[in-house]
């Protein structure tokens, strides 16, 4: 018998038991839908994060004090590291040390809030360079000006505020020239940023930026920085600039062994790589869980196939009596198993795609995320191949059993 006829015979066999066939593949359908959903959400999350990181700019290099954090607690620790100081900034600014550096500004984080006439607003307070901030986040000024080198040098008490801060305190008036308080110190507002939203996890609209020198001296009382933000003159030169920065800082800090570095460098590319790694580990882990579910589904298929073989003993006997060889019977039942699992796989891909799409709609409309629906044809193909594999692995034993039935035993069976 030709393969095509085995295939046709299998379809007829499955049609006879429609409801059972549907129930049998349910496990496979759910498993494959889960795989499609996991891949889609993984890809969506990656796109979302990359989109947000994109705002940081490919040429941006961030230097942070301490050892590279391995977890959230390490990150908190970096706030108390004092290894990055003005001396480092001076060294990095020198052309002969870092030739491709185009801009540099240190930053400090001022925890707390901002207040105006007794009202407080939970803001992100930064001591930074307003010019670099504006450029890095591609932010527009709604009114006023940005403070410059002079204000930084003079440790002036001036601030630039985001649009949410403005809306909170000055809904109907121009805040430029008004004074807000951070840690009991008055800061004169010189500029207001236009609404922008979140970039790299910061809500720009909730920012309050003051000169870093002022924040260091009057708000924190420290002489070191929480981070140093550097821009290379082009994205291609980021790699070489990172090396120049490392060499310069090691020289200034008297470090010969790179494993003893008291600073670490973050670039957009590095972050993208890291996030990609985390997401793929997560995807693999979840897929493994789904894989177990699929094995369980496969065992279910085997179970039902065995029942079906027993039930159809008479049919097997008849087929043998009219000329079917053992191979024909084996092919028929194996095809039935594969057909079952592959149709389960295809249904799973479609259902998975549907739920991925639904997830995208929900996340966009109800969670306010800028989520893009993504459907990986690779994952779909993988799902179908895996389901065919399950059909073969779990179908072979029942098929073998069917083929070994003796025709007379089979015909005698009542």
């Amino acid at each position, binding site marked *: 018998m030709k393969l095509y006829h085995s295939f046709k015979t299998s379809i007829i066999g499955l049609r006879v038991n429609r409801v059972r066939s549907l129930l049998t593949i349910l496990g496979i359908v759910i498993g494959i839908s889960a795989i499609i959903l996991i891949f889609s959400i993984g890809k969506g999350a990656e796109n979302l994060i990359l989109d947000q990181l994109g705002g940081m700019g490919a040429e941006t290099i961030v230097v942070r004090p301490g050892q590279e954090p391995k977890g959230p607690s390490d990150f908190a620790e970096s706030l108390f590291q004092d290894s990055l100081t003005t001396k480092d900034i001076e060294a990095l600014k020198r052309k002969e040390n870092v030739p491709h550096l185009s801009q540099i500004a240190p930053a400090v984080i001022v925890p707390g809030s901002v207040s105006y006439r007794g009202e407080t607003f939970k803001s992100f307070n930064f001591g930074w360079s307003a010019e670099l901030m504006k450029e890095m986040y591609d932010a527009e000024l709604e009114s006023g000006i940005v403070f410059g080198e002079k204000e930084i040098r003079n440790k002036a008490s001036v601030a630039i505020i985001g649009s949410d801060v403005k809306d909170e305190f000055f809904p109907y008036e121009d805040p430029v020239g008004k004074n807000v308080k951070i840690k009991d110190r008055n800061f004169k507002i010189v500029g207001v940023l236009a609404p922008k939203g979140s970039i790299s996890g910061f809500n720009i609209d909730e920012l309050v930026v003051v000169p870093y020198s002022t924040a260091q001296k009057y708000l924190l009382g420290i002489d070191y920085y929480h981070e140093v933000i550097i821009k290379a003159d082009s994205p291609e030169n980021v790699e070489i600039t990172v090396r120049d920065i490392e060499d310069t800082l090691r020289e200034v800090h008297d470090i010969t062994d790179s494993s003893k570095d008291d600073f670490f460098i973050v670039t957009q590319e590095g972050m993208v790589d890291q996030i990609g790694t985390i997401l793929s580990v997560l995807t693999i882990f979840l897929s493994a869980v789904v894989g177990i579910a699929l094995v369980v589904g496969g065992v279910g298929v085997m179970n039902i196939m065995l029942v079906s073989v027993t039930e159809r003993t008479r049919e097997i006997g*008849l087929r043998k*009596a009219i*000329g*079917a*060889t053992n191979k*024909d019977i084996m092919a028929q039942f194996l095809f039935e198993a594969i057909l079952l699992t592959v149709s389960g796989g295809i249904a799973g891909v479609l259902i998975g795609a549907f739920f991925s799409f639904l997830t995208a709609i929900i996340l966009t409309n109800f969670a306010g995320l800028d989520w893009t629906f993504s459907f990986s044809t690779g994952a779909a193909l993988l799902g179908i191949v895996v389901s065919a594999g399950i059909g073969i692995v779990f179908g072979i034993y029942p098929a073998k059993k069917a083929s070994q039935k003796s025709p*007379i035993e089979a*015909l005698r069976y009542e």
Partner: protein
Amino acid sequence: MQKPLISVKDIEKTYNDEGGETRALRGVSFDVNPGEFIAIMGPSGSGKSTLLHMLGFLDRPTKGEYKFSGRIASNFSDDEQAHLRNEKIGFVFQAFNLLPKTSVLDNVKLPLFYSDIEESKWNDLATRAINSVDLSHRIHHETQQLSIGEKQRVSIARALVTDPDVIFADEPTGNLDSKSGGLIMDIIKRLHYKGKTIILITHETYTAGYADRMIKIRDGKVESDEKIESSRKIGEFKK
């Protein structure tokens, strides 16, 4: 002298069951010439079904020699036996063994699936076989919609579709009322007139009367083997 189509010599079959050995056949010998219509009779447990399974390549004898068309059957592989069953033999079973929820046409086509005959001829062959048992008006009906007499006619059409040399009929009227039983025997008799070799297994003397030779089996041995001088003709059924 004509060369026999089937020749068995001292055939024995022993089953090893839990309760010990069962000797279903204890040395059976006879020849069947092409075109003969033989009835094999015997009470239940006499070994007549076992004999049919041997002759139809559904089982192998424990001892003895079986020649089919002059070839020694014990030398055939499983696949060769399957091929012979498909090409040379048609089975008609007491319980019909039709596929449920499948049309008459597809049931009759089933042996062609396993044959070397080109697919383009399948519909034609199956339709002709169905016409020969007067069921053309039921061709697209599913088998569970048919009466039991019609079901047996479908199973005869299925046995005929590959144009085999021998038809083995195992109690073909056993499940039927006398009227449809007579109709079935008429069809079988007609096949005999057309030149087919027929081996009929039955325990009813009346049905056996359609054959022109009767072999009686008892306790796994041939009890008698004689010609029937005036066998029953088509349309003669009554009970």
